[in-house]
């Protein structure tokens, strides 16, 4: 798996380049907005990538907290499976189906909800113990990078098209708050660099996840009271544009996954080096007392 990295890096770069090519040259020019609209083809896919990276961080954080005791771990597994199954069935119930926003198919909601336990259990299997924490920090960092891109390209798109740099609309504001929460997450990790960091950070991630729906509702209601221009192109996409969009989502997701993987490996290396340093200083102390210490080998498939 580790050998595959250079090949995957080349493939991903080609894929992203192809996505850019499609977005900048092949996609039809938008009638009202002009060429500037092409920002959409890397602004929105970056947003999707950031969101699922933050989602991975949330899953890893919850798993990390649950793994403290076997009983909580089992309970968490069952809860996640139950949520997944309930979420997969619910969209097909008529009362729930009516509540779905227009354009959202019950099938896609069901698939997304089923993915939750699948992702949760897979992450639990392939990232045991401390590796969960390494995954969490990797996903958070790369997520912040992609989220920064969204927040910078958004106003650059809005200014020429709608005449304003910023508006407190649902998507932009939610993205900003998510960015703020995760930057505070990274600051906590940086300033707390000790043994408690993983637990504290995981707790903060859970708090952040609880906050997001509340942020969403508060801005939604604010918008109904103070209507503002809809920026970011609400409404459906021309099919040719949609295909370019989704291709870019796939390309950016692969890119995000690759960078996250790279960051994860660097984090594991970092911990190995720190552990080796600690062992060395122990040995310096211990050799005078006649004590031998062996470093633990870290096993990771990825």
């Amino acid at each position, binding site marked *: 798996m580790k050998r595959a990295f250079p090949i995957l890096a080349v493939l991903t770069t080609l894929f992203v380049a192809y996505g850019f090519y499609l977005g900048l040259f092949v996609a039809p020019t938008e009638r009202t907005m002009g060429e500037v609209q092409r920002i959409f083809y890397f602004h929105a896919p970056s947003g999707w990538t950031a969101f699922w990276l933050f989602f991975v961080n949330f899953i890893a954080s919850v798993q990390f907290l649950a793994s403290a005791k076997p009983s909580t771990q089992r309970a968490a597994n069952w809860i996640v499976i139950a949520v997944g199954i309930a979420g997969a069935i619910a969209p097909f119930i008529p009362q729930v189906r009516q509540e779905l926003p227009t354009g959202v198919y019950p099938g896609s909601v069901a698939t997304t909800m089923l993915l939750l336990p699948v992702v949760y259990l897979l992450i639990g299997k392939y990232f045991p113990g401390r590796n969960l924490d390494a995954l969490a920090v990797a996903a958070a960092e790369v997520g912040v990078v992609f989220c920064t891109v969204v927040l910078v390209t958004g106003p650059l798109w809005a200014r020429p098209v709608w005449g304003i740099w910023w508006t407190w609309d649902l998507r932009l504001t939610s993205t900003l708050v998510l960015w703020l929460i995760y930057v505070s997450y990274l600051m*906590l990790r940086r300033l707390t660099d000790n043994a408690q960091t993983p637990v504290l950070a995981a707790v903060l991630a859970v708090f*952040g996840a609880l906050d997001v729906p509340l942020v969403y509702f508060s801005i939604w209601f*604010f918008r109904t009271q103070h209507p503002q221009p809809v920026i970011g192109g609400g409404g459906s996409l021309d099919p040719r544009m949609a295909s370019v969009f989704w291709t870019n989502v796939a390309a950016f997701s692969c890119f995000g996954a690759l960078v996250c993987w790279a960051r994860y490996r660097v984090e594991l290396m970092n911990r190995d080096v720190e552990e080796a340093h600690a062992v060395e200083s122990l040995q310096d102390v211990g050799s005078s007392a006649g004590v031998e210490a062996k470093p633990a080998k870290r096993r990771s498939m990825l």
Partner: protein
Amino acid sequence: MSSLRSITLATLAKDIRLEWRSKDALNSMLFFSLLVVVIFSFSFDPVAEESRRIVGGLIWVAFLFAAVVALNQTWARELRNQVLDAYRVSPAPANALFLAKVLGNFIFVSVLEALMTPLFIVFYNLRALGPAWQLIPLAIFGTWALVVNGTFFAAMSLRTRNREIMLPLLLFPISIPALMAMVQATTAILTGEASARFWLLLLLTYDVVFTTACLALFGAILHAE
């Protein structure tokens, strides 16, 4: 359950007694709150008609900064005397300590708010055009929202290198929906132009969600090793 309540009340009573005897924090916080109100009044000095629209935001930002200064001292006494280590090895439930701290902070910040509000009314010539009684549940829910998360994050910040700055860094992003609700509700009540009901419900939901989360996870924070 009764042990939780008795330990919480005992800890709370102890905190109040200690605070009342020294009055350190109380006096400095009172003066700080007065200064904040005066500075804000100098910086934002509108005519009475417009003031109702913006004073909601001003008041809650002022309360927020006063609360942060108060919250930063929450665990100072415990830290000085290694109380937290003693608590970790005692069989007492961690939640009792947390609840006591939150209640203590709630009372403290409420006292500050009660003192700052008349000053704001005076400086801005305020008069509520909407249902003024709604300001009471608003103050209760809003203060609880700030204090419950603030106490929790203050505990998290204890292991941090820059303890004092970490609390606002963590608290502000998470509090954004609560702050929006508080400001919008205050504006709605003062101007009488809209109903504050949704915002009060949102605040209540926020309080329930995060109080539950704090109670569930405080043990993890306290025993993190």
